[in-house]
């Protein structure tokens, strides 16, 4: 290189370094220390794009409704509430950076989790390192490894979440007096935990496990898996899957068929409005988990129906591109920030030790009923319900907002239908 070129390249290199340093220090410049009149900032990552966006978007709207409500009631500690969030793209890799930015640059007062086990897992080391309260939204046993005392989680799967999540499904299938079971799970944190719990429940019921396999998360064609399961002739077929896999498996079973009497269990995504209307009658017969469905006995959660009505109106009025129904996550996403707000107001100051201690010892009344957390931050009792898809005639979305398409099979005290063999509903 000529001397002049060398000089210019060096100047360019230095200019690049300065530009990078300037961008990093100004774009992410630390904001002023929060003053007492400043809003209370609650930060989180959320799956607004990617595989879990169907749940992430409805959660965000629910949290925004909560922020409106709490601000109308005077906010937290007399300060208004502001939500600060970033799209994690359903990519765990992005999560540590987002929480680092929330805590160090946005200077949020609290962080709560994004939606889903796989997105909570990478945030755990960050919050544990900062020793702060962390509310989780639908995490499956995320605290099992850490036993972090300031973690609280709203998925109502009970103190032993992996087992509690599927216990009601196994209660519901007892009608068929099954002897053999096949289990299939996506090779991801949530689904694997779920299947491990299902294996424990199956063993407790004395079932013979004839098939127990994981499939890679990127699987596109599920017909070979369904054929492999069918070859083992199981009485019941337990599936733990994420939205893409759930849709693929429903379609594969519609194509290949199965003689299993009960199919489903831990299929995430079948609760999303888009997938329900898209899959339509193909869903008939599936017996799956859920937490809230528009059945008359669901009045055990006072205020949840009104909240969902508000959500649906907001989505319609504002033309939001998110789940039109919101049954799956809206009450729970509202509740997990509501509990945090109630705890902070009760403690009267931002003291994470005191807030965690308060949450541990308090029974909270929320839109998802009374909530108590155990030592590991999980619910003290499971409230997962087993529902069966019945009588779905077409792909119209409206039918899913009426009682009758997702009947509750267990627990018995809120049961609204009789569980029927899978093929009798096809």
């Amino acid at each position, binding site marked *: 290189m000529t001397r002049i070129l060398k000089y210019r390249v060096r100047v360019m290199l230095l200019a690049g370094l300065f530009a990078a340093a300037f961008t990093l220090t100004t*774009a*992410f410049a630390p904001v002023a220390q929060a003053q007492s009149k400043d809003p209370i900032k609650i930060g989180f990552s959320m799956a607004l794009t990617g595989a879990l966006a169907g749940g992430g978007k409805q959660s965000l709207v629910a949290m925004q409704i909560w922020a409106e409500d709490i601000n109308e009631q005077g906010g937290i500690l007399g300060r208004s509430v502001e939500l600060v969030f970033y799209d994690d793209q359903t990519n*765990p*890799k992005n999560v540590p950076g987002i929480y680092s930015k929330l*805590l*160090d640059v946005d200077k949020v007062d609290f962080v709560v989790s994004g939606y889903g086990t796989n997105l909570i897992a990478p945030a755990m080391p960050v919050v544990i390192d900062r020793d702060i309260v962390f509310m989780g939204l639908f995490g499956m046993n995320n605290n099992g490894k850490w036993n972090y005392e300031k973690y609280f989680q709203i998925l109502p799967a009970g103190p032993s979440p992996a087992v509690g999540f599927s216990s009601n499904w196994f209660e519901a299938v007892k009608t068929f007096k099954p002897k053999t079971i096949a289990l299939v799970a996506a*090779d991801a944190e949530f689904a694997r935990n779920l299947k491990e719990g299902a294996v424990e429940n199956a063993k407790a019921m004395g079932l013979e496990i004839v098939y127990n396999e994981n499939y890679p998360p990127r699987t596109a064609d599920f017909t070979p898996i369904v054929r492999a399961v069918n070859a083992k002739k199981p009485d019941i077929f337990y599936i733990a899957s994420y939205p893409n896999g759930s849709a693929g498996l429903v379609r594969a079973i519609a194509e290949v068929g199965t003689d299993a009497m009960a199919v489903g269990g831990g299929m995430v995504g079948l609760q999303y409005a888009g997938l329900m209307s898209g899959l339509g009658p193909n869903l008939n017969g599936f017996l799956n988990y859920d937490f809230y469905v528009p059945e008359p006995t669901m009045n055990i959660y006072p205020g949840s129906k009104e909240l969902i009505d508000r959500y649906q109106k907001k989505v319609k009025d504002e033309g939001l591109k998110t789940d039109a129904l919101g049954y799956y996550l809206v009450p729970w996403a509202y509740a997990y920030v509501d509990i945090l707000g109630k705890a902070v107001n009760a403690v009267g100051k931002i003291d994470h030790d005191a807030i965690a201690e308060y949450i541990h010892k308090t029974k909270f009344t929320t839109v998802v009923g009374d909530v108590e957390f155990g030592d590991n931050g999980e619910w003290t009792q499971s409230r997962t319900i087993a529902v069966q898809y019945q009588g779905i005639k077409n792909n119209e979305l409206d039918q899913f907002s009426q009682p009758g398409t997702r009947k509750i099979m267990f627990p018995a005290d809120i049961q609204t239908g009789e569980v029927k063999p899978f093929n009798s509903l096809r």
Partner: protein
Amino acid sequence: MIMRYKFEIGCVAFLVLAFILTQLGLNRFFFFAGFAVLQFIMIATAWNILGGYGGYINFGTAGFLGVGSYTSIALIQWSNVSIVPQIIAAAALAGLLGLAIGYFTLRLKGVYFAIATLALAIVLETVVNNWDFVGGAAGISILPTRKPELLGAVIVDRKIGVFGNYKEFLFFLIAGMTIFSVWVARTIEKGKLGRGLNAIKDNEEAAESMGVPTLRLKLIATTISGALMGAAGGIFPSYLTFIDPLTAFNLEFAVYSLAMPMIGGTFTWIGPVLGGLLLGTVQQVAIVTISSELNLLILGVVLVVFVTFAPHGLVGWFMKKN
């Protein structure tokens, strides 16, 4: 004498600057984002040793990074080994892998070599997907040691440590590793190895006939390139505190590692540094501002613009202007 070693003096000065930055009590996110930018520069520099100087397009960057990352995870799971031995082991294993892959694939040329290296990442990802000891497909979270020690001295502690927090320590480590990588790349470029690789890039048969030991040079290049990528991967789990196969073997790394030298210029060590600096910074800003998968679109647009208007990268564009 000083002029002769001015590059080395500059390297030491940058390292001292990195250390001083960690002592200023800057916002922790500065170090988080800075780490990502420096890691990009290191990856680009490592890729350029084979791809830029030797003309062998390596699509297996994710494979080497993943081997580095999972070597660290395996060592943590096995005996909670501290970070420096993790990085050394990661570099050694990825270097050996580079040597082996080089031996088996360097007889392939052009697109066939690129496909073979791409397959490497996919094969390794499948292996890790089915290896439960390191978390399998579900991935694994790790919590860095609260007060790591080195030779009896506390490295990270707010009061008595050399660094106030772990992110500062990692930033300093990656700064040192990046500077070392750039020094290695420049040394290769200026030496016999670089000239030999350039000859291979221009016309391998002609180089061979002129007595250039082509296979040996290519093996050295794949080993060094692999080792540096492995080192960059070895530190990755401690930075992210979570690793899964999709993250560690993400083909985005292959695209970025190729794009950065292309944007900066592949024929000199400054090219990957500039490309890494530019793309690394843009990516960090995009993640928290645009905050969606759109940041990949930015990469695509930048690449198209450079391939069209500056096919020899920023450095080439400046050379042309002068």
